[in-house]
């Protein structure tokens, strides 16, 4: 366990400078040319986990706003955002990462929440202050899943 943490930290450090134990801190994520080139954690994203996070109403809850034919078994896909069919073809993973972390960095007018951002609204619920919707690893998992939507 400790060894994994140390390795993770070192990898993170080498890539981006500022890290916490489970990845880059939200306020240290570097967005350059609309992309987040470096994964937020040293553990490669797991698409299967990402699929679960995508569908989970308490985590990504992505179906609230986006349709996704890969989840045709689930009823009632949202319409607020674009369909994610083919998202993995349309977008590079570095861009998908930015969209999930803080979509407003690319689309300033979007209503999409930033899932790994502290650029949040007013009066945040007290127990959520300083916390992000997803963890760094969950973002990587979701990005890995989105990459599979060809």
């Amino acid at each position, binding site marked *: 366990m400790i060894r994994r943490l140390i390795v993770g930290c070192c990898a993170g450090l080498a890539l981006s400078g500022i890290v916490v134990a489970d990845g880059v801190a939200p306020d240290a994520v570097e967005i350059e*040319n609309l992309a987040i080139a470096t994964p937020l954690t040293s553990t490669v994203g797991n698409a299967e986990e990402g699929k679960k996070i995508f569908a989970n109403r308490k985590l990504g809850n992505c179906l609230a706003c986006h349709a996704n034919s890969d989840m045709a078994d689930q009823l009632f896909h*949202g319409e607020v955002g*674009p369909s994610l069919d083919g998202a993995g073809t349309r977008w590079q993973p570095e*861009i998908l990462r930015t969209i999930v972390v803080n979509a407003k960095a690319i689309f300033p007018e979007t*209503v999409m929440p930033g899932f790994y951002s502290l650029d*949040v*609204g007013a009066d*945040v*619920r007290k127990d*959520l202050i300083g916390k992000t919707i997803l963890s760094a690893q969950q973002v990587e998992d979701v990005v890995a899943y989105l990459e599979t939507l060809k």
Partner: protein
Amino acid sequence: MNYSRFIAAGLGVAITTTFVAATVVAGPVEDTLVIDDEIEIITRAPSSEGHPLPEVISGWHYRTDSTRAMEADSFANGGMLGVEQGAALWSTVEGSEGKSCESCHQDAATSMAGVGAIYPKWHEESGRPMNIELRINACRVDNMGAEPYKFDKGGQKPLTAFIKHQSLGEPVKVNLEEGEMQKWWEAGKELYYKRTGQLNLSCASCHELNNGKHIRADHLSQGNVNGFPTYRLKQGNLISLHNRFRGCIRDTRAEFPDAFSDDLMALEVYTTWRGQGLSVETPAVRQ
């Protein structure tokens, strides 16, 4: 790597997809609401000057066939049970003065006709806008010698629904000329566009920018308030406006203001203005 061309390509596809989706999306349903084949309800109206949307549309148009049918039939409308409770409360003597509402206001069908359509209104004495709930409480304290209702407790919801129901079909109109109503309208407008919570959403994010679209199974309406207290099928009960305000703000993962606080009174003034021209539908039936 240059990502901008990917962005352009991705956006192109995204916009096309959205456009294609929009053609199959059911927006507000074309239908007319006549309650008990008798009372015509204005469910679409030209918006007030300065309103960002061209037309105001009642939430009734965004609901399913069966929910819309329930509101058109007062026997099927579960909210009418609350209205009946309210009618009983109207005649119930409470407090040290031995009075009921009826003692002073007699028949509500006459004395309260049109009242629900012009609230909230300016209240000089307290120096703030007053809604029906606060009006009832002021009457209970000042004239009946009774305790004020606590938020959503006692008879507050049924009595408010009963009083508003006396204006069924009347177009909503708030008077912003009185007192400092304009100032409260402005404060309410600011709150309407203020993004709150971890999810970083404002009222406008859903009800102005995305009305007509679905969030999962929920069809987003313009968020007009002309049907409150509303009978919500989800709770099987009358739901007050300030409860709904708080629920929406809570869902953005924010701390939410107290019922009847300055913030929520300002929001009531502003959202009531946004729905001006629509008929009072109390008790509306919603999902």
